[in-house]
Protein backbone atom coordinates (compact mmCIF):
# COMPACT_ATOMS: atom_id res chain seq x y z
CA UNK A 1 0.00 0.00 0.00
CA UNK A 2 1.46 3.38 -1.00
CA UNK A 3 0.97 6.55 0.97
CA UNK A 4 -1.54 9.07 -0.30
CA UNK A 5 0.10 12.16 -1.75
CA UNK A 6 -0.93 15.41 -0.05
CA UNK A 7 -0.82 18.56 -2.15
CA UNK A 8 -1.03 22.00 -0.55
CA UNK A 9 -3.42 24.38 -2.21
CA UNK A 10 -4.17 28.08 -1.72
CA UNK A 11 -7.88 27.81 -1.22
CA UNK A 12 -10.77 25.37 -0.98
CA UNK A 13 -14.47 26.21 -0.63
CA UNK A 14 -16.07 26.00 2.82
CA UNK A 15 -18.90 23.56 3.30
CA UNK A 16 -19.41 24.43 6.97
CA UNK A 17 -20.48 27.80 8.31
CA UNK A 18 -19.17 29.14 11.60
CA UNK A 19 -22.74 29.32 12.90
CA UNK A 20 -22.74 25.49 12.95
CA UNK A 21 -19.77 25.15 15.32
CA UNK A 22 -21.79 25.20 18.52
CA UNK A 23 -24.11 22.43 17.26
CA UNK A 24 -21.20 19.99 17.08
CA UNK A 25 -19.19 20.52 20.27
CA UNK A 26 -17.41 17.18 19.83
CA UNK A 27 -16.45 18.03 16.26
CA UNK A 28 -18.35 15.09 14.79
CA UNK A 29 -19.26 16.74 11.52
CA UNK A 30 -17.98 15.84 8.07
CA UNK A 31 -19.54 17.23 4.94
CA UNK A 32 -18.76 15.93 1.46
CA UNK A 33 -19.70 17.42 -1.91
CA UNK A 34 -19.36 15.37 -5.08
CA UNK A 35 -19.50 17.27 -8.37
CA UNK A 36 -19.13 16.34 -11.99
CA UNK A 37 -16.77 18.80 -13.65
CA UNK A 38 -15.42 19.25 -17.16
CA UNK A 39 -12.39 17.17 -16.22
CA UNK A 40 -13.96 14.44 -14.13
CA UNK A 41 -15.43 14.06 -10.67
CA UNK A 42 -14.45 16.44 -7.88
CA UNK A 43 -14.85 15.34 -4.27
CA UNK A 44 -14.64 18.14 -1.70
CA UNK A 45 -14.58 17.50 2.04
CA UNK A 46 -14.92 19.84 5.00
CA UNK A 47 -15.11 19.03 8.68
CA UNK A 48 -14.27 20.00 12.21
CA UNK A 49 -11.68 17.23 12.52
CA UNK A 50 -9.25 16.96 9.59
CA UNK A 51 -8.55 13.33 10.48
CA UNK A 52 -12.17 12.35 9.81
CA UNK A 53 -12.24 14.05 6.41
CA UNK A 54 -9.02 12.34 5.40
CA UNK A 55 -10.38 8.96 6.48
CA UNK A 56 -13.46 9.45 4.33
CA UNK A 57 -11.48 10.62 1.31
CA UNK A 58 -8.93 7.84 1.70
CA UNK A 59 -11.71 5.25 1.86
CA UNK A 60 -12.83 6.28 -1.62
CA UNK A 61 -9.25 6.41 -2.88
CA UNK A 62 -8.86 10.15 -3.36
CA UNK A 63 -5.22 10.53 -4.38
CA UNK A 64 -3.66 13.03 -4.49
CA UNK A 65 -5.50 14.79 -1.70
CA UNK A 66 -5.46 18.60 -1.73
CA UNK A 67 -5.39 20.44 1.58
CA UNK A 68 -4.99 23.99 2.81
CA UNK A 69 -2.34 25.07 5.27
CA UNK A 70 -2.73 27.19 8.39
CA UNK A 71 -1.16 30.64 8.40
Amino acid at each position, binding site marked *: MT*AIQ*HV*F*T*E*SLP*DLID*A*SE*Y*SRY*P*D*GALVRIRISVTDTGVEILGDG*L*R*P*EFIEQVLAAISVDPME*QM*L*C*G
Partner: protein
Amino acid sequence: MTADPGPQWRPAMFGEPAGSGRVRCTLCPFRCVLADGQAGVCKVRRNDAGTLRTATYTAGVVHLTAVERKPFYHVRPGAQVLTVAGPGCSFRCDYCINYRISQYGRDDAAPWLGEPALPAELAARAAAAGALLGMSYSEPSLAPELTLDLASHGVPVVWKSNGYVTAEAISVLAPALLAVNIDVKAADEASHRRLTGASLGPVWNAIERFHAAGVWVEISTPLIPGTSAAPESLRAIAARIASIDVNIPWHLLRFTPDYRLAGADPTPPSALTIGRSIGLDCGLLYVYVERALGPAGRNTACPQCQTQLVHRDVWQMVHNVIKGGRCPGCGFLMVGRW
Protein backbone atom coordinates in the same frame (compact mmCIF):
# COMPACT_ATOMS: atom_id res chain seq x y z
CA MET B 1 7.83 8.67 -10.54
CA THR B 2 11.26 10.28 -10.06
CA ALA B 3 13.13 10.02 -6.80
CA ASP B 4 12.86 13.02 -4.50
CA PRO B 5 16.17 14.94 -4.87
CA GLY B 6 16.05 15.95 -1.20
CA PRO B 7 17.28 19.22 0.26
CA GLN B 8 20.06 21.29 -1.23
CA TRP B 9 22.31 22.55 1.54
CA ARG B 10 24.00 25.94 1.27
CA PRO B 11 26.11 28.07 3.62
CA ALA B 12 24.15 29.46 6.52
CA MET B 13 24.33 32.57 8.67
CA PHE B 14 24.64 32.45 12.46
CA GLY B 15 27.21 29.68 12.68
CA GLU B 16 30.33 29.94 14.84
CA PRO B 17 33.15 27.52 15.67
CA ALA B 18 32.59 25.54 18.85
CA GLY B 19 35.87 23.60 18.92
CA SER B 20 36.94 20.18 17.68
CA GLY B 21 35.18 20.67 14.35
CA ARG B 22 31.88 21.44 16.00
CA VAL B 23 29.71 24.38 15.03
CA ARG B 24 27.28 26.34 17.19
CA CYS B 25 24.14 27.66 15.51
CA THR B 26 23.05 30.93 17.13
CA LEU B 27 19.89 31.45 15.10
CA CYS B 28 17.43 30.08 17.64
CA PRO B 29 17.58 29.80 21.42
CA PHE B 30 18.36 26.09 21.29
CA ARG B 31 21.86 27.20 20.25
CA CYS B 32 22.65 23.69 19.02
CA VAL B 33 26.32 22.64 19.11
CA LEU B 34 26.70 20.30 16.16
CA ALA B 35 29.30 17.66 15.39
CA ASP B 36 30.28 17.15 11.77
CA GLY B 37 27.31 15.83 9.84
CA GLN B 38 24.86 16.53 12.65
CA ALA B 39 21.64 18.51 12.11
CA GLY B 40 20.11 20.75 14.73
CA VAL B 41 16.83 20.38 16.57
CA CYS B 42 15.20 22.00 13.53
CA LYS B 43 16.57 19.27 11.19
CA VAL B 44 17.19 21.84 8.45
CA ARG B 45 20.50 23.36 9.56
CA ARG B 46 23.58 21.21 9.99
CA ASN B 47 27.34 21.10 10.41
CA ASP B 48 28.94 20.15 7.12
CA ALA B 49 32.69 19.70 7.68
CA GLY B 50 32.89 22.64 10.05
CA THR B 51 30.55 24.93 8.13
CA LEU B 52 26.96 25.58 9.12
CA ARG B 53 24.64 24.89 6.19
CA THR B 54 20.94 25.30 5.72
CA ALA B 55 18.23 23.57 3.71
CA THR B 56 15.77 26.42 4.19
CA TYR B 57 16.64 28.44 1.08
CA THR B 58 13.69 26.63 -0.41
CA ALA B 59 10.35 27.26 -2.05
CA GLY B 60 8.27 24.19 -1.34
CA VAL B 61 4.96 26.00 -1.35
CA VAL B 62 4.23 29.32 -3.07
CA HIS B 63 0.72 30.67 -2.52
CA LEU B 64 -0.95 34.00 -3.21
CA THR B 65 -3.56 34.69 -0.53
CA ALA B 66 -5.03 37.56 1.49
CA VAL B 67 -2.94 39.19 4.23
CA GLU B 68 -5.86 38.49 6.57
CA ARG B 69 -5.08 34.78 6.33
CA LYS B 70 -1.72 35.03 8.11
CA PRO B 71 -3.48 36.65 10.07
CA PHE B 72 -2.54 40.32 9.88
CA TYR B 73 -5.36 42.79 10.49
CA HIS B 74 -3.32 45.99 10.90
CA VAL B 75 -1.02 45.49 7.93
CA ARG B 76 -2.23 46.72 4.53
CA PRO B 77 -5.83 45.45 4.90
CA GLY B 78 -7.00 43.81 1.71
CA ALA B 79 -3.48 43.26 0.38
CA GLN B 80 -2.34 39.98 -1.10
CA VAL B 81 0.67 38.07 0.20
CA LEU B 82 2.85 35.81 -1.90
CA THR B 83 3.76 33.25 0.72
CA VAL B 84 6.90 31.14 0.39
CA ALA B 85 7.52 28.12 2.59
CA GLY B 86 9.99 25.29 2.78
CA PRO B 87 10.09 22.36 5.20
CA GLY B 88 11.20 22.71 8.81
CA CYS B 89 10.33 24.01 12.23
CA SER B 90 12.14 24.51 15.52
CA PHE B 91 9.01 23.35 17.38
CA ARG B 92 7.26 19.97 17.35
CA CYS B 93 3.80 21.16 18.36
CA ASP B 94 1.33 18.41 19.18
CA TYR B 95 -1.54 20.16 17.41
CA CYS B 96 0.20 21.27 14.20
CA ILE B 97 -2.16 21.25 11.24
CA ASN B 98 0.81 21.90 8.95
CA TYR B 99 2.84 18.94 10.19
CA ARG B 100 3.22 17.54 6.68
CA ILE B 101 5.57 20.44 5.91
CA SER B 102 6.68 21.67 9.33
CA GLN B 103 7.79 18.36 10.82
CA TYR B 104 10.31 17.42 8.14
CA GLY B 105 13.06 15.31 9.70
CA ARG B 106 10.89 14.25 12.65
CA ASP B 107 7.87 12.64 11.05
CA ASP B 108 7.78 10.36 8.01
CA ALA B 109 4.51 12.05 7.03
CA ALA B 110 6.58 15.14 6.15
CA PRO B 111 8.79 14.24 3.20
CA TRP B 112 11.16 16.75 1.64
CA LEU B 113 9.33 19.29 -0.49
CA GLY B 114 10.59 22.03 -2.75
CA GLU B 115 13.43 23.42 -4.80
CA PRO B 116 15.92 26.22 -4.21
CA ALA B 117 14.10 29.54 -3.95
CA LEU B 118 14.66 32.21 -6.58
CA PRO B 119 14.21 35.51 -4.69
CA ALA B 120 14.29 37.79 -7.73
CA GLU B 121 11.54 35.81 -9.44
CA LEU B 122 9.45 35.61 -6.29
CA ALA B 123 9.81 39.33 -5.65
CA ALA B 124 8.92 40.13 -9.26
CA ARG B 125 5.83 37.95 -9.05
CA ALA B 126 4.77 39.61 -5.79
CA ALA B 127 5.37 43.08 -7.22
CA ALA B 128 3.37 42.28 -10.35
CA ALA B 129 0.46 41.23 -8.14
CA GLY B 130 0.83 44.27 -5.88
CA ALA B 131 1.46 41.81 -3.06
CA LEU B 132 3.67 41.59 -0.01
CA LEU B 133 6.08 38.69 0.39
CA GLY B 134 5.27 36.33 3.23
CA MET B 135 6.98 33.43 4.91
CA SER B 136 4.62 31.14 6.74
CA TYR B 137 3.20 27.58 7.10
CA SER B 138 6.53 26.28 8.48
CA GLU B 139 9.01 28.34 10.56
CA PRO B 140 10.32 31.38 8.66
CA SER B 141 12.92 32.33 11.24
CA LEU B 142 14.87 29.23 10.18
CA ALA B 143 15.40 30.93 6.81
CA PRO B 144 17.23 34.19 7.58
CA GLU B 145 19.29 33.90 4.41
CA LEU B 146 16.19 33.72 2.22
CA THR B 147 14.44 36.44 4.21
CA LEU B 148 17.26 38.90 3.63
CA ASP B 149 17.52 38.05 -0.06
CA LEU B 150 13.76 38.43 -0.56
CA ALA B 151 13.78 41.78 1.23
CA SER B 152 16.68 43.02 -0.89
CA HIS B 153 14.33 43.29 -3.88
CA GLY B 154 12.24 45.99 -2.24
CA VAL B 155 8.98 44.13 -1.64
CA PRO B 156 7.99 44.23 2.06
CA VAL B 157 8.36 40.90 3.84
CA VAL B 158 6.14 39.55 6.62
CA TRP B 159 6.50 36.46 8.81
CA LYS B 160 4.09 34.17 10.62
CA SER B 161 6.46 32.79 13.23
CA ASN B 162 6.81 30.88 16.47
CA GLY B 163 9.09 33.66 17.69
CA TYR B 164 11.87 31.27 18.65
CA VAL B 165 14.78 33.37 17.48
CA THR B 166 17.77 34.86 19.27
CA ALA B 167 18.47 38.52 19.97
CA GLU B 168 21.46 38.53 17.62
CA ALA B 169 19.37 37.13 14.78
CA ILE B 170 16.59 39.65 15.41
CA SER B 171 19.05 42.51 15.26
CA VAL B 172 20.05 41.39 11.75
CA LEU B 173 16.57 40.45 10.50
CA ALA B 174 14.33 43.17 11.94
CA PRO B 175 15.37 45.78 9.35
CA ALA B 176 14.25 43.36 6.63
CA LEU B 177 10.77 42.78 8.04
CA LEU B 178 7.64 44.89 7.81
CA ALA B 179 5.66 42.76 10.26
CA VAL B 180 5.63 39.54 12.24
CA ASN B 181 2.73 37.59 13.65
CA ILE B 182 4.04 35.50 16.52
CA ASP B 183 2.24 32.64 18.21
CA VAL B 184 1.98 32.63 21.98
CA LYS B 185 0.74 29.10 22.50
CA ALA B 186 0.74 28.86 26.30
CA ALA B 187 0.84 31.02 29.40
CA ASP B 188 3.48 29.13 31.35
CA GLU B 189 6.80 27.44 30.72
CA ALA B 190 5.72 23.89 31.52
CA SER B 191 2.69 23.95 29.23
CA HIS B 192 4.62 25.56 26.40
CA ARG B 193 7.46 23.09 26.65
CA ARG B 194 5.04 20.17 26.76
CA LEU B 195 3.20 21.37 23.65
CA THR B 196 6.11 22.60 21.54
CA GLY B 197 9.29 21.09 22.95
CA ALA B 198 10.68 24.59 23.55
CA SER B 199 10.78 27.26 26.22
CA LEU B 200 8.27 30.12 26.31
CA GLY B 201 10.58 32.84 27.65
CA PRO B 202 12.49 33.41 24.41
CA VAL B 203 9.22 33.86 22.55
CA TRP B 204 8.27 36.82 24.76
CA ASN B 205 11.81 38.15 24.42
CA ALA B 206 11.48 38.02 20.64
CA ILE B 207 8.13 39.80 20.71
CA GLU B 208 9.62 42.58 22.81
CA ARG B 209 12.68 42.88 20.60
CA PHE B 210 10.79 42.96 17.32
CA HIS B 211 8.40 45.53 18.78
CA ALA B 212 11.26 47.68 20.05
CA ALA B 213 12.96 47.45 16.66
CA GLY B 214 9.92 48.93 14.95
CA VAL B 215 8.67 45.76 13.29
CA TRP B 216 4.88 45.64 13.40
CA VAL B 217 3.84 42.83 15.76
CA GLU B 218 0.58 40.94 15.97
CA ILE B 219 0.11 37.95 18.27
CA SER B 220 -1.91 34.76 17.79
CA THR B 221 -3.03 32.37 20.50
CA PRO B 222 -4.71 29.08 19.67
CA LEU B 223 -7.11 28.02 22.42
CA ILE B 224 -5.62 24.58 23.03
CA PRO B 225 -7.32 22.42 25.68
CA GLY B 226 -5.05 21.88 28.67
CA THR B 227 -2.49 24.37 27.41
CA SER B 228 -3.92 27.80 26.68
CA ALA B 229 -7.71 27.61 26.59
CA ALA B 230 -8.40 28.19 30.29
CA PRO B 231 -9.51 31.75 31.14
CA GLU B 232 -6.66 32.19 33.63
CA SER B 233 -4.15 31.26 30.90
CA LEU B 234 -5.69 33.68 28.45
CA ARG B 235 -5.70 36.41 31.10
CA ALA B 236 -2.01 35.90 31.77
CA ILE B 237 -1.18 36.08 28.06
CA ALA B 238 -3.35 39.15 27.50
CA ALA B 239 -1.86 40.95 30.49
CA ARG B 240 1.65 40.28 29.21
CA ILE B 241 0.79 41.61 25.75
CA ALA B 242 -0.80 44.69 27.31
CA SER B 243 2.35 45.31 29.33
CA ILE B 244 4.27 45.55 26.06
CA ASP B 245 1.75 47.60 24.06
CA VAL B 246 -2.04 47.69 24.16
CA ASN B 247 -1.99 48.44 20.42
CA ILE B 248 -0.72 44.95 19.59
CA PRO B 249 -3.58 43.08 17.91
CA TRP B 250 -4.34 39.75 19.59
CA HIS B 251 -5.85 36.99 17.45
CA LEU B 252 -7.66 34.19 19.24
CA LEU B 253 -7.63 31.07 17.11
CA ARG B 254 -10.09 28.23 17.26
CA PHE B 255 -8.30 24.97 18.00
CA THR B 256 -8.83 22.28 15.35
CA PRO B 257 -8.17 18.76 16.68
CA ASP B 258 -5.38 17.30 14.57
CA TYR B 259 -2.07 15.46 14.67
CA ARG B 260 -1.20 14.24 18.19
CA LEU B 261 -4.15 16.16 19.66
CA ALA B 262 -6.68 14.70 17.24
CA GLY B 263 -8.62 13.27 20.19
CA ALA B 264 -9.33 16.61 21.86
CA ASP B 265 -12.49 18.61 21.24
CA PRO B 266 -12.57 21.76 19.10
CA THR B 267 -12.79 25.14 20.81
CA PRO B 268 -16.42 26.07 21.51
CA PRO B 269 -17.41 29.55 20.30
CA SER B 270 -18.30 30.45 23.89
CA ALA B 271 -14.65 30.07 24.90
CA LEU B 272 -13.64 32.49 22.17
CA THR B 273 -16.25 34.97 23.40
CA ILE B 274 -14.81 34.70 26.91
CA GLY B 275 -11.27 35.05 25.60
CA ARG B 276 -12.14 38.17 23.67
CA SER B 277 -13.70 39.73 26.77
CA ILE B 278 -10.59 38.85 28.77
CA GLY B 279 -8.34 40.53 26.23
CA LEU B 280 -10.36 43.71 26.20
CA ASP B 281 -10.64 43.62 29.99
CA CYS B 282 -6.84 43.48 30.19
CA GLY B 283 -6.65 46.70 28.22
CA LEU B 284 -5.89 45.40 24.74
CA LEU B 285 -7.46 47.63 22.12
CA TYR B 286 -7.80 45.04 19.39
CA VAL B 287 -8.82 41.43 20.04
CA TYR B 288 -9.91 39.42 17.03
CA VAL B 289 -11.65 36.13 16.29
CA GLU B 290 -11.74 35.34 12.60
CA ARG B 291 -14.79 33.19 12.03
CA ALA B 292 -16.58 31.82 15.05
CA LEU B 293 -18.02 35.10 16.33
CA GLY B 294 -19.08 36.49 12.97
CA PRO B 295 -18.25 40.00 11.69
CA ALA B 296 -18.16 41.47 15.20
CA GLY B 297 -15.15 39.29 15.95
CA ARG B 298 -13.11 40.33 12.95
CA ASN B 299 -14.01 43.97 12.27
CA THR B 300 -11.80 46.79 13.51
CA ALA B 301 -13.54 49.46 15.56
CA CYS B 302 -12.10 52.74 16.80
CA PRO B 303 -11.26 52.20 20.49
CA GLN B 304 -12.33 55.77 21.27
CA CYS B 305 -15.61 56.38 19.40
CA GLN B 306 -16.44 52.78 18.34
CA THR B 307 -16.83 53.71 14.67
CA GLN B 308 -16.45 50.60 12.52
CA LEU B 309 -13.30 51.26 10.51
CA VAL B 310 -12.33 48.02 8.79
CA HIS B 311 -15.08 45.63 7.76
CA ARG B 312 -14.00 42.08 7.01
CA ASP B 313 -15.60 39.02 5.55
CA VAL B 314 -14.01 35.62 6.21
CA TRP B 315 -10.33 36.01 5.34
CA GLN B 316 -10.82 39.22 3.35
CA MET B 317 -11.34 42.92 3.75
CA VAL B 318 -14.64 44.40 2.59
CA HIS B 319 -13.77 48.05 3.15
CA ASN B 320 -11.46 50.24 5.18
CA VAL B 321 -12.24 53.86 6.11
CA ILE B 322 -9.06 54.60 8.09
CA LYS B 323 -7.58 57.83 6.69
CA GLY B 324 -3.95 58.70 7.25
CA GLY B 325 -3.77 56.17 10.05
CA ARG B 326 -6.59 57.86 11.99
CA CYS B 327 -10.24 57.26 12.71
CA PRO B 328 -12.24 59.61 10.44
CA GLY B 329 -14.86 59.96 13.17
CA CYS B 330 -12.76 61.23 16.08
CA GLY B 331 -9.17 61.37 14.84
CA PHE B 332 -7.93 58.57 17.12
CA LEU B 333 -4.52 57.29 16.02
CA MET B 334 -4.94 53.76 14.71
CA VAL B 335 -1.54 52.14 14.98
CA GLY B 336 -0.54 49.75 12.21
CA ARG B 337 1.12 49.56 8.84
CA TRP B 338 -1.81 50.76 6.77
